[in-house]
C-alpha cells in the first residue's frame, strides 16, 4: 500500500484503484468512508453530453511525440541559428539541390557564406529583448515562407525562418521527422501539419506534450479561419504562396489564443467553464432558445456565452461540439470587438466538427443591457434573416421572463472564493468533470490574485497535469510539496481534481480538504455545471 509522503512524489497508479475516496493514510477503504461512497461521483450527468467528453490530451494525443527522437544540442546547429545574414532563398535552394550527404555543419557553412550578401534588412533575432522572450511561436510554410511570429515582425526574421525550414526538410529528407531539440534552458519543438510548419522555442517548464497541444490549437485556429480544404488547395496550387495575405487580420486571433493558452486553465484541461446559474434558470433560458428556433431547419448549434463562460448550448440531434472547437468560438468572440456593434454573419470552420467546410454563424450580443453573446450556427448560407428574427424573439422572451436580469446578475458576480467552501487548508483548486468536459475553480485569492501569482499557480497546475497525464506513465494520484505550496492531483474515471494547499499542510488535512471539496462540488444546487444536453 502506497503512502503519501511529503517531499516526495508517489506514484499510486499501481496500488490504488481510481474512483475511490481518500482516507487519511492515503489508503482506500472502499465503501467505508463515513460520507459513503464518493466512488462514482460526478455531477448528475445525462447519458449524453453536449460537449464531446475529453481526456485532456485525447484527440491531440496522437500528435504528441511519445518517446520522440530528440536531438542532442549541436554546437554547429546553434551557430547556424545565430548567424546574422542569410537569405532563406539560399538556404532553400541548398536544400532543394539535395546533396545526398549533407550535414548540419554544412548548413552552417552555407549561413556563413551568406554573410557576404549585403542585406539591408535588420534581423530581429539579434535583439536582446527579442531573445529574452520566454516563448516564441513561429509558423512558416513548408517552402520556408514566413507566416506568423508571436514576437516581432516575420519580415525581420527571414533568416530564422529559412533555418527552420532547412532543419525540417534536412531531417525530412531521410524520411525522419524532426520533433524537438533540447538545449540547456531552451527547447525547440516542431509540429509539421501538411504544408505548414509550426515551431515553438520556449524556456518555460512546459512539457513537450503540453506545447504540442498548444501548437495544435494554433494550427486549428488557422484551419478555423481558412478550412483545411482551402489551406491544402492553396499550397497544392502554389507551393510558394504567401499565406499572410489570407491570414491578414487573423493574427490577432492567434495572438489572443496564445494569451489564453498561457493564462487560462480551460485550454490546459480541455474543458469549458459554465456561467454559474440555478439549474431552473438555465433550463428556462435554454427553453426560450429552443422554442424560438425549433422551426428553423439546418440550425446546428445555438451557443450562448458570457464573460468567457458558457451559459447554454443547444445542438442538433446527433451532433456534438468538441471543447476545442468551443474554445475557438470563445476566442473569436473575445477577440472581436466588432460583434458588439451590430449583428454579424460570418463563416467559421470548426476543425473538430468538420475541417473541410464553413458553418455560417449569426453572432450578436443579446442587448445593450445584457452582454452575453449568442451564436447561431448553421450550414445554410440563406438563413440570416430567419436567425435574425429568432434572435429578436429570444431577447424579447428572455426580457419578459426577467432572464436577462438573471444572466446579468450571474455575469456581475465576481466568483466564489475558496474561503466560502469551508476548506481553509486549500488555497485554490480546479475540478474537471470529464464526462461533460466542464470545469470549475474558485476565484483566485491571495497569493494568486496577482498576475505573477496566477501565473505561478497555473505553472504548478501544468506540472501536476503533465505528471498525471505523462504518456509513458500516467498517474492517478500525485502529491507534490515545495516551498511555495503543496499540490495534489487526483484523476478518477469521472473527474480530475487539482488542488493547491499551503506548503505546510499535513497529509491528513489535505485529504480531508479534498473530500470536502468533492462533497461541495457534488451539491447540485451550485449550478456550476450543465448536466443536460439539450437539442432542438
Amino acid at each position, binding site marked *: 500500500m502506497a503512502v503519501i509522503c511529503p517531499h516526495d512524489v508517489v506514484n499510486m497508479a499501481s496500488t490504488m484503484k481510481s474512483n475511490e475516496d481518500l482516507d487519511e493514510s492515503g489508503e482506500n477503504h472502499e465503501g467505508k468512508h463515513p460520507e459513503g461512497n464518493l466512488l462514482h461521483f460526478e455531477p448528475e450527468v445525462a447519458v449524453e453530453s453536449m460537449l464531446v467528453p475529453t481526456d485532456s490530451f485525447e484527440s491531440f494525443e496522437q500528435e504528441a511525440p511519445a518517446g520522440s527522437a530528440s536531438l542532442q544540442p549541436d554546437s554547429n546547429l546553434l551557430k547556424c541559428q545565430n548567424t546574422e545574414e542569410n537569405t532563406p532563398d539560399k538556404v532553400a535552394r541548398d536544400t532543394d539541390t539535395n546533396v545526398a550527404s549533407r550535414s548540419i555543419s554544412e548548413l552552417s557553412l552555407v549561413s556563413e557564406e551568406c554573410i557576404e550578401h549585403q542585406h539591408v534588412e535588420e534581423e530581429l533575432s539579434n535583439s536582446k529583448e527579442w531573445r529574452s522572450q520566454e516563448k516564441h511561436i513561429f509558423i512558416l510554410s513548408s517552402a520556408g515562407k514566413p507566416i506568423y511570429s508571436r514576437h516581432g515582425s516575420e519580415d525581420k526574421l527571414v533568416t530564422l525562418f529559412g533555418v527552420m525550414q532547412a532543419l525540417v526538410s534536412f531531417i525530412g529528407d531521410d524520411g525522419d521527422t524532426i520533433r524537438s531539440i533540447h538545449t540547456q534552458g531552451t527547447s525547440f519543438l516542431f509540429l509539421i501539419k501538411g504544408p505548414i510548419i509550426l515551431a515553438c522555442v520556449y524556456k518555460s517548464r512546459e512539457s513537450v506534450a503540453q506545447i504540442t497541444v498548444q501548437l495544435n490549437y494554433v494550427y486549428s485556429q488557422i484551419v478555423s*479561419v*481558412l478550412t483545411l480544404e482551402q489551406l491544402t488547395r492553396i499550397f497544392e496550387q502554389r507551393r510558394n504562396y504567401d499565406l499572410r*495575405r*489570407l*491570414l*491578414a*487580420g*487573423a493574427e490577432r486571433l492567434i495572438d489572443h489564443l496564445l494569451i489564453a493558452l498561457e493564462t487560462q486553465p480551460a485550454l490546459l484541461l480541455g474543458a469549458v467553464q459554465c456561467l454559474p446559474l440555478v439549474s431552473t434558470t438555465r433550463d428556462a433560458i435554454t427553453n426560450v432558445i429552443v422554442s424560438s428556433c425549433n422551426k428553423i431547419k439546418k440550425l446546428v448549434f445555438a451557443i450562448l456565452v458570457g464573460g468567457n463562460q458558457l451559459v447554454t448550448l443547444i445542438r442538433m440531434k446527433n451532433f456534438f461540439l468538441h471543447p476545442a472547437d468551443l474554445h475557438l468560438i470563445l476566442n*473569436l468572440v473575445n477577440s*472581436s*470587438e*466588432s*460583434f458588439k*456593434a*451590430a*449583428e*454579424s*454573419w*460570418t*463563416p467559421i470552420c470548426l476543425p473538430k466538427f468538420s475541417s473541410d467546410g464553413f458553418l455560417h*454563424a449569426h*453572432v450578436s450580443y443579446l442587448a445593450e443591457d445584457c452582454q452575453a453573446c449568442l451564436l447561431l450556427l448553421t450550414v445554410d*448560407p440563406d438563413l*440570416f434573416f430567419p436567425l*435574425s428574427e429568432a434572435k429578436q424573439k429570444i431577447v424579447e422572451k428572455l426580457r419578459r421572463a426577467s432572464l436577462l436580469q438573471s444572466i446579468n446578475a450571474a455575469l456581475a458576480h465576481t466568483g466564489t472564493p475558496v474561503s466560502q467552501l469551508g476548506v481553509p487548508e486549500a488555497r485554490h483548486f480546479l475540478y474537471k468533470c470529464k464526462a461533460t468536459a466542464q470545469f470549475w475553480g474558485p476565484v483566485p485569492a491571495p497569493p494568486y490574485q496577482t498576475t505573477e501569482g496566477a501565473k505561478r499557480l497555473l505553472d504548478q497546475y501544468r506540472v501536476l497535469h503533465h505528471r498525471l497525464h505523462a504518456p509513458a506513465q500516467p498517474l492517478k494520484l500525485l502529491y507534490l510539496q515545495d516551498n511555495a505550496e503543496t499540490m495534489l492531483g487526483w484523476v478518477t474515471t469521472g473527474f480530475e481534481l487539482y488542488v493547491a494547499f499551503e506548503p505546510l499542510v499535513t497529509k491528513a488535512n489535505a485529504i480531508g480538504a479534498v473530500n470536502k471539496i468533492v462533497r461541495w462540488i457534488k451539491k447540485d444546487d451550485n449550478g456550476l455545471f450543465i448536466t443536460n444536453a439539450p437539442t432542438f
Partner: protein
Amino acid sequence: MKTIEGKIVVLGSQGVGKTSMVVRYIGKMFSHHISPTIGASFFTCKINIDDTRVKLQVWDTAGQERFRSMAPMYYRNANAALLVFDITQYHTFTAIKNWVKELQRNVEEPMVLALVGNKTDLVNQRKVTREEAHQYAVNIGGSYFETSALQDEGIEEVFLNSAVGMIKLSEDSQCTSLRVYDSSEAGGTTAILQPPPPLSAAVQLDKGPSPGEQERVLACC
C-alpha cells in the same frame, strides 16, 4: 405611404473606413476603436424622401482577404453598392476595379453604384486624385463621393444618393429584387403595381420620429 425595401452592400479593402462610415451615418458617431469587421455586419435604417420611405438593409462587409470568397453571399440581390477606398492608399482604389468586375459578372439586376473616397481629412496624404476617381465612376455608370467619417463630411449624401437611386430603380419594371409596398394599408405588404409619383427635386430627410411609431429616420436596427 410607399415603402421601398432595398439592400445595399458596402465593399472595399481592409481599413478604408467602411464600418466607420456606416456607424457614422446610422449611429451618428465616430469611434477610433472600431475593430475590423468579421464576415459582415448587418444594419438597417430608414430614409424618408418626399412621400416615399426607403428601408435600407446595409451589409457592411469585411475587407480582410480571407472573407473575399464569401462576398457573393453578401452582395447577392443587392440593389446598391458603396465602393469605398481610402484616398491616401492608391492600392485600395485599384482594388475597387476588381470589385466592379466581379459585380458586373455576378449581379444581373441593375444596381446603384457609388464610388466613395474616404478619409478626406488626410488630404495632404492624398494619393488618388478627385479627377481620376470621378472619371472612373462615370465609366462604370456610378457617382463619385468624397467623405470623411472622422469629420462627418459627405456621408449623408452617399446614403441619400443610394436611396434616391433605389427609388428610381423601383420605377423600372426590370428590377425585381426591390420590394415595393404601400405601408399605409393594413398589413403593410401590399405590392403596388402602378408607378410611383415622380420625385420632386427636394429630397428631404425626416429627422423626427413619425407619429405613432417609434421610428427614427435613421434608426439603427
